[in-house]
């Protein structure tokens, strides 16, 4: 973490121009080509502002976020595809910069956890529903109903 921050700071120092506090995407950053700009905005939403708390560079006011936005645009203008631009940035800033981590290594668990849990829940619910709806349980339950429930029902009806 600290190392990647240092590296980020070093990269930042190279491209940094002295700027007052800024607010998210600045007019002077916007690319002339609207298609490229749209792609840049799309990528920006998936990149984390490294010095902020849980903000993407698209919404962050920090200088470092601005540098990353400029870097994304620089790569796109240079002719990178979206993937190449992202790879370029991940190489320099580390995996931490991605807001949606790549499904490599143990990360498959993150993506599979929801579906696995859903399947498990459906299986459990299926077993439960079969138990609840089979006829034998129905007969048992009808008998169980007749004693306790009857007394209860009488009381409710009396009220």
């Amino acid at each position, binding site marked *: 973490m600290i190392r990647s921050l240092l590296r980020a700071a070093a990269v930042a120092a190279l491209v940094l121009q002295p700027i007052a506090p800024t607010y998210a995407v600045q007019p002077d950053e916007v690319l002339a080509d609207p298609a490229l700009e749209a792609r840049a905005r799309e990528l920006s939403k998936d990149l984390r502002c490294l010095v902020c708390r849980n903000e993407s560079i698209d919404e962050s006011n920090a200088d470092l976020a601005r540098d990353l936005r400029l870097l994304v645009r620089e790569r796109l203008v240079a002719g990178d595809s979206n993937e190449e631009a992202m790879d370029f940035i991940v190489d320099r800033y580390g995996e931490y910069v991605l*807001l949606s981590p790549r499904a490599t290594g143990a990360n498959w668990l*993150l993506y599979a956890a929801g579906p696995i849990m859903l399947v498990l*829940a459906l299986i459990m619910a299926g077993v439960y*529903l079969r138990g609840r709806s089979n006829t034998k349980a129905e007969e048992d339950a009808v008998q*169980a109903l007749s004693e306790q429930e009857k007394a*209860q029902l009488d009381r409710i009806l009396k009220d």
Partner: protein
Amino acid sequence: MITELGHFALILAFVIAIVQMVVPLIGAHFRWPGWMSVAEPAAQAQFFFTAFAFGALTWAFVTSDFSLRLVTLNSHSAKPMLYKISGTWGNHEGSMLLWVLIVSLFGAVASVFGGGLPPTLKARVLAVQAAIGVAFFAFILFTSNPFLRLAVPPFDGQDLNPLLQDPGLAFHPPFLYLGYVGLSMAFSFAVAALIEGRVDAAWGRWVRPWTLAAWIFLTIGIALGSWWAYYELGWGGFWFWDPVENASFMPWLLAAALLHSAIVVEKRESLKSWTILLAILAFGFSLIGTFIVRSGLLTSVHAFANDPERGVFILIILAFFTGGALTLFAARAQAMQAKGVFGVVSRETALVANNILLAVSCFVVFFGTLWPVVAEMAFDRKLSVGPPFFDAAFTPFMVVLGLILPVGSMLPWKRGVLGRTMWRLRFVFVLAVALGVLAWAMQTGRSGLGPIGLFLGAWVVFGAFADLWLRAGSSNRLGRLIRMPRADWGKAVAHAGLGVTIFAIAGLTAWEAEDIRVAELNKPFNVGSYTLELQDVRRVRGPNYISTMADIEVTRAGKFVALLNPEKRDYPVAQMPTTEAAIDYRFLRDLYVVIGDQQDNGGWTVRTYIKPLANWIWGGSLLMALGGLLSLSDRRFRVAAGARRSPREGVPAE
């Protein structure tokens, strides 16, 4: 002096809570009426003393008593009165005091209105509730005492974080806490029922109002927070999947699941052990939320008290209550014999599906929130899990939920025929599809998100009201509609609220327009169909800030629409700038304008957003809360809550 009395009252409340935790529990075990009845006056006294302590702290904030450490750190004499009061809970210590105040409030309310409860159950519920109180009293007194004095009081305070000085946020924490802590009541009922060893329809009926109340408060609290983010953070985002937002969202999802499964317990005496488990988990997630916010385990925009020692304390509380309750659950769950029998196609099954979707989606949020910590500790990978992941992983669950909701809510209990229920909804389906196609035709070359959102929203909203309409029968429809139980109306309104929110989120995301530029004075520019003109930029002095305020006139086809005053504020004491967006609120869209910095050529950075349906997000949330309120005021919660005892006044409608 008042401060010392407040401190003393807090200690007294702590001691009373200990008594309330121990004595009624022993009494209930041996069926000693005298010991059991200790719970009621104790609960009320505990609330009284906690309220006194909280009042004393509020008084210190109102009078700006800077000899109190907490007041010095979080207040300032020039702060407006509203924020002096809200400053009481705008910090770690004060917010914990508010938390425990609400714990004791719910206990006191249960003791006053719980007349219909069987005495042993009541004693046990109040004892468990007191146990929660004891844990948090100890937490406050031993790690986060708000009543500490300063030996040398400073001349003035350090001010509250200016982002928090806002009317929306002043009431965001109390509502959230009412929600979190309201779930403690469901937890207490669940644990008491486990100790008692029986769960029946009456139990479901007692638990539901508390869950419903907690869920209403959570809904309002989350909506307030989201609304605040929308207008305060300066670019109109309303949900960030921030760990702390997730911390409040997870209990909300589980509370929604719980209040649906409690219906099955109440009406059909099934799903008992699952409902107990949900009640335990829902409060468990409230505690996890507290832990996440206070421990600094996960970095977040909200975390205002990052202290490992406190984190460990809350972790112990969390482990004790959820661990203890789950152990008890494992030991006793078999005793919960289900009675109701139902077919695979039935309302019961639909509610099971609802519970699966809500619980698994909560699990997804939980997993995503904690994954960065797990990945770093177990795999030494430093990574982030942010909005793109949650949007992709969570949304499908809500889409499926929306699709099955109208059908499921109209299926008959016990046994239904799927085709017949769907046939009754054919007009609703055609209408929803038609609206979706219309939206598709009217938009030019954009994603399918908007039309699909409109279809899904319309399907849920009209489906909810078709349910009411069809149930009213064919003769004297209006009269029957009006006399329909409030719970039925509540159900329709809350479901419609969900539909509205779904549509609004999809519409806003799909149809939002944005413009970023350097605007020069008196040079109009166009955004969408609007023309904006920056007329003036002024310096304005506020009570505790200095503002740079712009005058921007908005016209449409030559007609005046609004004069907007976006601001940049600088709070000199807190040394923090904030942006205050200017928003022209309209029914169908918001016009959202933010002013940035002055540029070298004399122009100013101006960002303009056209945000369609923004208000509908919070309108939908309010509808959900209103639906809950209607349901809560239903007759059956007010009369004869207990079927097994004399029909005295039941559990309160809060």
